[in-house]
Every structure is written in C-alpha cells, then in structure tokens.
C-alpha cells in the first residue's frame, strides 16, 4: 500500500499508491556495511544497464516492481528549517507494477512552511539497446489540498512500461525544527537498498524507536559534524535486500510490522546550555494534558456540560445508573464520524455536543467530562490501538497513543468504558481498543493498567425440528447472541431490517426457507443478550433417494469456507476477540426411518487449547441430537499456531457438511414403496 512512510508529529506522511494487498513472501538477506555492486547513494541519472535488462526477480515471484533504491537525507537547512531530500528509484517488472508510477505524496501542513517541491522525475527505457530518457514535466506535478491540514503532491512518471526504470526526487520542508520524520525501510514490494541519513543537532535529544523484525537501531553509523544549528551527529542506516511485506487475512495492519524508525524528541538545549526535557516524566505529561482546555478534566466546567449532566442524572439513585444514563445519551446522540482524531481534540466538549458528531476521542472525552460534571470519578485512559503499534512504557511520549477511553470508578471498582457506539455495551471496548495496557491520565498518580477484554463473541444456537418424508425440515430455532456477538447482531439489524437480518444472516445458505412467529428480544437493552426465536421451515432440505435419506444437521450458521487460505503465515493472527459458539440440534425423524450411519465425533484442539472444536451426535429411536462447539482462548495468536488453526478451520468446514444416512425401516417397506412412487410423481 505504501512504498514509504514518513511521519511527523504523529501524522503520517506517506506515498499512497493504488491499494494493493499482497500475500506475504519472506526472504531476507540483511547485509550491513558490506560492499555492494551499487554505488550508494546512486547518482541521479546513472542507471546501470543490467538493471534495465532485468526482467524478473526470482527471490519474490509475486513482485511487480523492485524498489532499487529509496534514500532519504534529513537535515536542517541554512535557515534552520527541517528538510528531507528523498530519492526513489523503481524497476517495473510487470504491467501490474505500472500503477505504482502514479505517485501521491501526502503530508501534514499546519503552516505554509510545510512544502514539497523541487520534484524531478525521469523514466528510462531500453530501446534497441539504447537508453531512452523521458523527463517528468514540471507542469505535470499537481498540488492538492485535502483539508484537515493535509496536502498532497501528485504526479505520474511518463513512458512507464513493464521493464522501465523510473526515479524521482523531491525536497520536503517541515513545520517544526525538532520533529524528525520517521523512515520506513520496507514496503509491499521488495527493496534492494534503503538508505537513511539524518543529522541530529546536539541541541535536540531523541529517543529512537524501531519496528519490524530486526533491530535496526544497532545498524547506524555515526559521523560528527557541524551545521546551522551547531554541532551535530550524522546517523546513517542502510539496509539491503529487504523483503516485501504484504497483508494477510486476520492481520490488522502491516504498519506494526514494517521495518521502520521513529524519533521521539526528548529534550532540547536551552540558552543557558542546560538540557530541558520536552516531557521527561509521565507525571509531567499528565499535568500538561490536564491543563489543556480541550482535554478531559477541564471540560466538566463548561456550563453546557454541567447542565446537561444534571439533567441526565436527575432521578438516578446510584453511580452505576448515572454512568449508564450518561453513556446512553452520549452514544445515542453523538455520532462517531469514523475517525479517531487527535488525542487532544481540536474542538471543545460543548462544540462536539452541538455538532452531535465527533471523532472517537472527542466523544469519549465528552463522556468523561459529563461524568466529572455529574460528580463521578473518571479519568482519560490513553491507549494505542492494535493497528497503531505497541507503546514503549519507558518513554513518556504522548504520540505513542491514539485513542482515549474512559476509566471510571464505580461501585468500588475501576472499569474502562467507551461511548462511541449505541449498539455496544459501554464496558465492551471496540476491537481495535483491546490492546495490552492503557495509561491513566492522572497527574497525581499516572499509572498503567491492564486492558482485560470484558467479553467474547458468544453465540448459542438451539434448534428442535421434525424431518418430513419429503425431506422438508420444520421446527423451532433460537439464536442467542451475547457480548460481541450481540454487538454484531444489533449492528446487522440496525443496518437493514429484521426481515433482511433473518433471510440474509440467519437463513444464509438455505434455499426457500420460511419463518413464522419471529421474536427478537433485547434489541435496545445493550446489557442483555439478543435473542431471536422463530418457527422455521425449509422445504426439500434433506436429499431423498428411494428408501434413503441424507440429512445435514448443521442447518444454521454453517462455516462455508476456510478463512485461512494461505499456506503459511508470518504475522500474528488477529481474530478480534475470543469466541465461544455452540450449536445444538435435536431432530425427529419421519416415521419408520432409522439411522444407518452417522458422522464420526470430533474433538480437536490446537496446542495450548488456544482453539477447540468439538462435535458429537447421539441417536436413539427416531431422535438425533447433535452438538458442536467452537471456542478460542485468545484473540491474537502467534504465527506458530497458524498451521494448526488452519487445519482446525478445515475440519470445521468439513464438519459443516456432515450427513446422517437414514433409511426407511424394513417393516413397512411395501407400503412405503407404493407411497413413494405416488409421492414422487406428485412432487415433480
């Protein structure tokens, strides 16, 4: 999706190419400080003929391009402005790689000082052994204002075909002198050389964070020097032959895993020569946050907030009732606009209230401030969502966080709540928020707390049915959805109608199914399970052939396909939440039929009992009872579990089509044969 990613002040500056999710193919040869055939950095325009003649890349056959070189040089220019010079060179291997030559450089610009200019580009093609150069025209470089302080520069390289090499360079200037951009070495295509140089002036101190599967920090070469901001140390990182990293199903994002570097400013030198920390302790960070007018604690003082809080808690006698009343109001009346926004919002609580919509962080801060105003002890708890990367607790850097939850003391306990959805109970956090630890913003006692998921995906299906001689099935079904399953049921019903929910979700895969006396309970009471009860009929459900009948007892919620398709996995498998799904079916056979053969019982688990699947059946007389259960014990599994989990799913898919073999008993065979012929005559 990206070929490179830079960020400043927590916002991404990235090159967006057409969305492409590629499967993963890992190979890695990492050399550091070795001599290579290539000159580093390569001279602009000096493209080796061997690279132009290259037609394939055996190490990664899925590659559509090779990033031959991605170089960045970060320094302060003569006027002290933080500057990046970037140079990218790409070899196009296949036609599928051509679209990558449509480049969009998105960057944050809070002032007009933030710019990208001096864009140059050249495409090289081999034409009868001759190298043909085509320049990117300057008037074919476009600027776009994206709103929300974001801008982009867009261009496309000319004459790009399979086999071409193109390169481009540009100069980017940043708003703030201290906020070094991050550097990402890895993309969804293989990279031959990624080379990053940054001159860090002695007046700034940074904490360097690395991401990815090798420790890059240690690969830096250091050279002292002097520049516009006095003496500096130049750090050079160079990686070679970096494999592509492509997304896989059940993977939240690749950005957690891409090899990258981030720089957190930790201190600067004051005029008197002493180092002044930016935020050197978590206490200081908490204090700074609490003083901010648009953040949590302050908000409860607004008159609009106070009067609304009073109105909402009027008549509520306990704290938990008060919390629930405030949550109900916020989640129902303030729509989540789909963005998370900054931790410190641009708008105040009353503004958010008036707009009746906001980012998730604005909504939860509004919720916290209403709780404060109602006299309930509540803190902002900061987390980094699962797609945002892990927090390093030793560094008091607020831009490690991207999400605000409400930490509320109620009835002697301390709970984490979220108010961004009106179909999710407040103690069930959004999936992305189920990270490891959160940081409680409390200047007197800032602290870390564990985030323990308060729910699972729990679903229970109970079916009692009568099988008819013509193969039709008729009976009662109950679908009981709790916790996250209830959230998804409510969301599905809210997004359509009850009728569509039944036909498209509950009856999925059943032909001609009909229902009657449908009741859905607790659609609005978020704390209760959603229960759907109905009478149903599926005509021609079982296969009838002469005296034989074949029936599948898994009528509802059958797993149709194995979601884990790729043979291998290199990244954690993120299933969102833990699951506990049960299915119980009791079926009465038509008069005179008996079970000839039944599916074997299954009891399967993956190592450590992280996921378990069981299915078994009992039959006696004309009744069969089948029960199955799927349980996962962890939401996120290491890639080592992948083959086992894939196999477990494979067994579940297969179990979903298991058949009971029924035969009409010999006792009244003669009658049956006669009936059979007439029936079939009518039925057809």
């Amino acid at each position, binding site marked *: 999706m990206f070929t490179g990613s830079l960020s400043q002040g927590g916002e991404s500056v990235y090159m967006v190419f057409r969305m492409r999710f590629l499967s993963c193919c890992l190979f890695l040869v990492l050399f550091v400080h070795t001599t290579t055939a290539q000159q580093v950095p390569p001279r602009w325009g000096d493209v080796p003929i061997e690279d132009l003649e290259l037609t394939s890349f055996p190490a990664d056959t*899925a590659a559509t391009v090779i990033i031959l070189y991605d170089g960045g040089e970060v320094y302060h220019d003569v006027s002290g402005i933080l500057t990046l010079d970037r140079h990218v060179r790409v070899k196009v291997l296949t*036609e*599928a790689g051509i679209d990558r030559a449509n480049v969009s450089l998105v960057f944050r610009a809070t002032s007009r000082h933030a710019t990208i200019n001096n864009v140059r580009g050249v495409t090289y093609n081999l034409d009868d052994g001759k190298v043909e150069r085509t320049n990117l025209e300057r008037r074919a470089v476009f600027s776009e204002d*994206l*709103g929300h302080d974001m801008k982009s520069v867009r261009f496309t390289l000319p*004459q790009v075909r399979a086999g071409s090499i193109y390169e481009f360079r540009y100069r980017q200037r940043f708003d703030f002198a201290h906020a070094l951009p991050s550097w990402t070495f890895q993309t969804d295509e293989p990279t031959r050389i990624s080379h990053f140089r940054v001159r860090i002036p002695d007046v700034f101190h940074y904490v360097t964070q690395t991401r990815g599967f090798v420790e890059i920090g240690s690969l830096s070469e250091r050279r002292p020097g002097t520049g516009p901001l006095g003496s500096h140390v130049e750090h050079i990182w160079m990686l070679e032959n970096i494999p592509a990293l492509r997304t896989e199903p059940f993977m939240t994002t690749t950005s957690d895993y891409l090899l990258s570097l981030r720089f957190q400013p930790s201190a600067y030198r004051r005029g008197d020569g002493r180092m002044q920390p930016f935020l050197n302790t978590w206490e200081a960070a908490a204090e700074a946050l609490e003083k901010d007018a648009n953040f949590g604690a302050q908000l409860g003082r607004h008159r609009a907030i106070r009067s609304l809080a009073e109105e909402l808690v009027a008549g509520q006698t306990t704290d938990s009732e008060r919390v629930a009343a405030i949550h109900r109001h916020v989640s129902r009346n303030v729509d989540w606009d789909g963005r998370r926004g900054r931790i410190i919002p641009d708008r105040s609580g009353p503004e958010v209230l008036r*707009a009746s919509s906001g980012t998730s962080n604005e909504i939860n801060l509004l919720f916290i401030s209403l709780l404060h105003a109602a006299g309930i002890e509540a803190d902002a708890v900061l987390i980094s969502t699962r797609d945002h990367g892990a927090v390093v607790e030793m560094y008091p850097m607020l831009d490690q966080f991207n999400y605000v939850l409400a930490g509320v003391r109620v009835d002697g306990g301390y709970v984490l709540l979220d108010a961004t959805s009106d179909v999710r109970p407040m103690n069930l956090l959004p999936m992305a928020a189920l990270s490891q630890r959160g940081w409680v913003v409390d200047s007197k006692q800032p602290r870390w707390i564990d985030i323990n998921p308060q729910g699972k995906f729990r679903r229970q299906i109970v079916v009692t049915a009568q099988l008819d001689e013509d193969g039709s099935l008729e009976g009662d079904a109950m679908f009981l959805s709790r916790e996250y399953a209830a959230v998804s049921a409510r969301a599905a019903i809210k997004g359509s109608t009850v009728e569509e929910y039944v036909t498209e979700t509950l009856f999925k895969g059943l032909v001609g199914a009909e229902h009657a006396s449908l009741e859905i309970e607790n659609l609005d009471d978020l704390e209760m399970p959603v229960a759907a009860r109905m009478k149903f009929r599926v005509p021609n459900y079982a*296969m009838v052939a002469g005296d034989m009948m074949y029936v599948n007892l898994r009528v509802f919620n059958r797993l149709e396909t194995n979601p884990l398709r790729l043979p291998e996995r290199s990244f954690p498998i993120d299933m969102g939440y833990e699951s506990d799904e049960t299915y119980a079916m009791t079926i009465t056979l038509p008069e005179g039929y008996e079970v000839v053969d039944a599916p074997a019982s299954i009891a399967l688990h993956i190592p450590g009992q992280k996921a378990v699947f069981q299915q078994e059946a009992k039959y006696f007389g004309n009744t069969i009872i089948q029960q199955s259960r799927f349980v996962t014990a962890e939401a996120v599994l290491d890639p080592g579990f992948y083959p086992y989990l894939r196999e477990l799913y494979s067994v579940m898919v297969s179990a979903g*089509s298991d058949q009971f073999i029924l035969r009409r008993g010999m006792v009244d065979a003669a009658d049956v044969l006669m009936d059979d012929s007439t029936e079939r005559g009518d039925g057809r």
Partner: protein
Amino acid sequence: MNRYIRIISGWLFLLSLSAFPLRAQVTQYPGDPKFAAGAIPAHLSDGADAVVRINQLHFEATAPDRGRTRIRRVVTVLKPEGRDHGSLSVWYDSFRRIRSFNAELLDASGNRVRRIRNNEFQDLSLISGYSLYEDSRERVLDVRHDAYPYTVVFEYEIDHRGLINWPTWYPLDSEAPVEWGQLVIIAPHTLPVRHHVRGDLSDPDIARDGRTMTYSWTVNGVEYEKPEPLGPPMWAQYPSISVAPTQFEIGGRSGRMDSWEAFGQWYHELSRDRSALTPEVQAAVAEMKEAADSDRDLVRAIYEFLQRSTRYVNVSLGIGGWQPFDAKYVIDRGYGDCKALTNYLHALLHEAGIEAFPALIRSERYPGRTIPSFPSNQFNHVILMVPLAATADTVWLEATSQTIPFGHVGAANENRWALVVRDGGSELVRTPASAAERNSQFREGSVTVHPDGAAEAAMVTRYQGNQQDRMRSLATASATDRDRWIHSALGIRDYRISRVDFDALLIRSDEVSLPVEVALPRFASRMGNRLVFEPNLAERWRTVPARAEHRKHELVISSYPYIDHDRLEYRIPDGYRVEALAPPVILDADFGRFEMTVDVSESGLLVFERTLEIRDSILPASSFESYREFAEAVVRADAARVVLVAE
C-alpha cells in the same frame, strides 16, 4: 474499463435542487412556512426517519455560457436514524463557483436554534480514483442536533461560467419522502429550452414575459419507495426531468445541441488539428503499413502498437475535461485519458490512410441511459469507430486498455447508443450487442476422490468475449488479488492450490484459458462406509432474490448475456458404488436455460455436467417471479449431492 471523461456533470450525481425568489407565476411552498415538524402530513411522516420539506432547484440561464443555479432544500429529521439527511455536499470547479452557501438549524416548532457557521463546512478534493488530477472539489456540510425532530434549511447558489449541462432534477432524490418539490428553468427567448421527462411527471407550467421563458414543474407529497433489488440503476427507478439548451459555450468553445449532428460537430471542432505525429511515429506507422496484408491487419497492428506504448492516466483541468490533448502529448508521455488516447489512435490510423471516427458513449454497466430523442451531453467516454470499407465491417476500438483484444470494447460499451463524430455528419449509432455464445466460459476437469474423502482436481477453463475481461485483469493483478479471485470464483470451500498458470491469461487473443490444479483435503464427508460430496465444484449460484409482490422495474440479471458450461469427471475410489445421485434438472425459460446432470459413464466415471445460458440479461418486470423460481431451482441444483457407498 471505467475510464470516464468528465462529460457527465455532477448534475447527474448531485440530486439536489431548486428555487428562491420566484417569479409571480410560479407556485410557492404550500406548507408551514416555519417548517414545524408537526405540520408534516401524516402519510409522509409515518414510519419515516426524515422528510424532505422542500426540494427546489431554480436555474436561470442568461447567456450560452452564463447561468445561476439556486438550491433550496429543507429537511426535517425525525429520529436519529435520519440524521444523515441533514448533510449536503456541493461540488465546484473552474466552470461552476459557489456564490453562496448558507444553512440554519430549526427546532421542532421551527424556531431557529442557530445559523451554521463557516467553520462547520468542509472543503474536500474530488480527485477520483482513476485520475491523476482534476480541478473539482466539494463543500460538505453535515448539520446535526440532539433534540428530535429538528429541521435543517440549506440554501446555496452556483454561478456558471461555461455551461454544457443544464440540470437534471429528481423530485425524489434521497431515501426520504418529499413534501414539496419544484424545478424552475428560466432562459431568454434567444436560448430555447428543451426538456425530457422520465417517469410519471406532469407537463411543465410555461410562462413568458418580454425577455424570458419560465418552465416549472411542481410535485406534492411524494412517498419514498425503496429501490427494487436486481433493478436498473437508481436514476432509472425514480422520475426525473432533464433540461438542455440549444446553444452552449464552455471554455470559450461554443456549440449547439439541438441535434446530434450539431453536438457532434462541436466535439469535432474541439478535437480537430490535434493529430500531428512525430517523424519517429510516422516511420513506425509506415513500417506497419508495409507489413500489413489487409486494412484489418493494419488496424490491428496499430491498435496493438498503441496498447504497447501507452497507458491510461486522467488529467482533467478546465476545458481539458472535454478537449482531447493532442497526439504529441501522448507520444511525449506515453499516457493519456480516453480522449487523448482515442485521438492519438485516430491520428495513427489517419497517418496509415485508414478512416476512423471518435464515438462519444456512456460507458457503464447498464446500457440504457442515453435518450436518443434528446440530443444533449449524455456521455462520459469516447471510443473509436473504424468502418472497414473493403470488408464492409466495422471495428470498434477501446483505446484505454493495454490488455483487451483487438475489436473488443467490453460490456460497458456494447449494446448502446454512441454519437459517432464525423465532420458534417455526426449521428447516433448503436454499438454491437454480444450474444450469449460470444461470452462463454467452458470448464473441463477431472477429479480423483479417495476413500478418506480427500480429492485432487485439475481443471482448465476457457473464457471468451466479456467473460475474458475479468480474467485479463487477473493477469496483471497482485498475488493476493489472484488468491482472492480463486477463492471466490471457484467457490471451493477448502482447498490448497497445487498449480495455477496466470501467465496464460496474458495472451492477447479472443480466448484465454486458465489451468488450475487444487488439492481438496476434505472434499467428501465420510460417514461409516459412505462418502457424500457435492459434484458441482466450481460454478455455483448461491442466492435467490426475495419474493416481490408488485414488481415495477425491469430486472438486470447480469451485465451481458453469457453461457457457462462445466464438465467434471470424477474418478471414484475402488470398491465404491454410487448409492444416490441427484436427478437431472432441466429448466427452460424465455431468458435462458439451465441443465444439470450427474451420471455414471460406461467407463465407470461419474460425470457432472452443468450448462447455464442467460440469453437476455435484462428482463421485463413481469418476468420477476419466473426468474426467481429459475434462480431457486438453480441454487438447489447447484448444491446437489452424490452418495457413494463401499461395497
């Protein structure tokens, strides 16, 4: 294939509309002038999330390139589910500027809660996914309130500096009933107004004064009906009024559109003298001409030369949305949009002495949008028509694809009207329709089933016509996209790919074929001494449309007529015999047929055969129930099982 020129204006998207200071003869909103929620007629508010109180578009043209649109839109939001109705977006570019945009929020009884301030508007870029750059942007406003019901009043004005599209107005333009709607069109006598009404709407009231003509349409109490599933596009399911001028001017280029000939002439003038080639390209054409045996061969060679040396990139700025870049632009950059690439192809053919004509077209899935009796700008794309005099056949060329075979234009361009642009003789011509047998998919395979239920399958599928288009895109797709395709297209529940040759799709011919080998670890369910499996491995219908009592609109059941044929031979394990088979299914309908058989052959193989032919892809509303029954029978047959038992 969706490479649109911006000939569509946002009118077709921006379904908002109508009038302010009204002339005396035009009727006024008859409802509560304060917009109290309680004043909404009960038959409109019952069950609704929101009600559009006023949907008014007032357009006044003053010159061929000058005009002003005024919109007044008042929406009462009755409950939280209706909140999205309180938002509005207005697009603008160098030809249309937003002169004013105001909004206010009223409470249930119509008292003003507040005026909407400037900082509540968002200003966003509208560069579409297929474009490198466009100059269009939008202003977006989303007004909400926390006490229901509430009312939002929007008013905005657009100044037009350059006009090619006059409004198209939809009385019902959102998922909410409309209390009152009005379209008013005012133009000087020198600019005669033409209009086209789709659906059940009355004739306009017409008034004239010394200087202008005024046309107005008014609707009262329009109830909302959901669009019908499997129906034509939304715009075809709701009534609309399109208005067009006789004379127009945009970017300083004036023209007439009172006949197709006149409108074609405008495009001709706009794109003439843009065909100069470089000596190198001229030499390349001469070489191709030398080598070609026939005109057809020559056209093919030139078309493939274009495909090799260019790609599609859209840059749309000002008049560039209509006027093609010249041939030199494409030669220098190796890219262009549909106008530029078609112009370049035209220039290449001209150089080779082959006559060809650009053809303006509405490229989209549904073929029926263009109204032949209403000459106006109804197009979003351009292709090239090449009449080959010697053989009396006509070749149509799509210049924006690097992979499709010569002479194939794809489902989005076929079977519809195109305006063939010819100096002094532009006319509407229908592009050819493809028959089912031209769009075929033939699959042959063999499957070996083992006693433990595992199986291996080897299949080759051949695709022709429109069915090959989606396959060609796979040839250049990423590994993940291919994997996703196999997963959904083959419909196999659980498999491991042993071999697949996507490179076979790269061949530029009228047919492509894709060999796939898969391992199916749990293909058959094993129950004691029996094996049960579904022999339809790869091609399957899964959904049946819900019953509909009073179907109003035609059914669009596929993008084009097609035929699928599957034949799979199953080698069953030794010692097993067939205990039960699904009976054959034969369905014959007016629009197509279906046939499925499973049989044991003389050599002991189990042979599954399935043929599905859709002869007509668009059916009249009266066919809904017969189509539904057909679909139900196909879904049932596609899930048929086979039972084997050990002897």
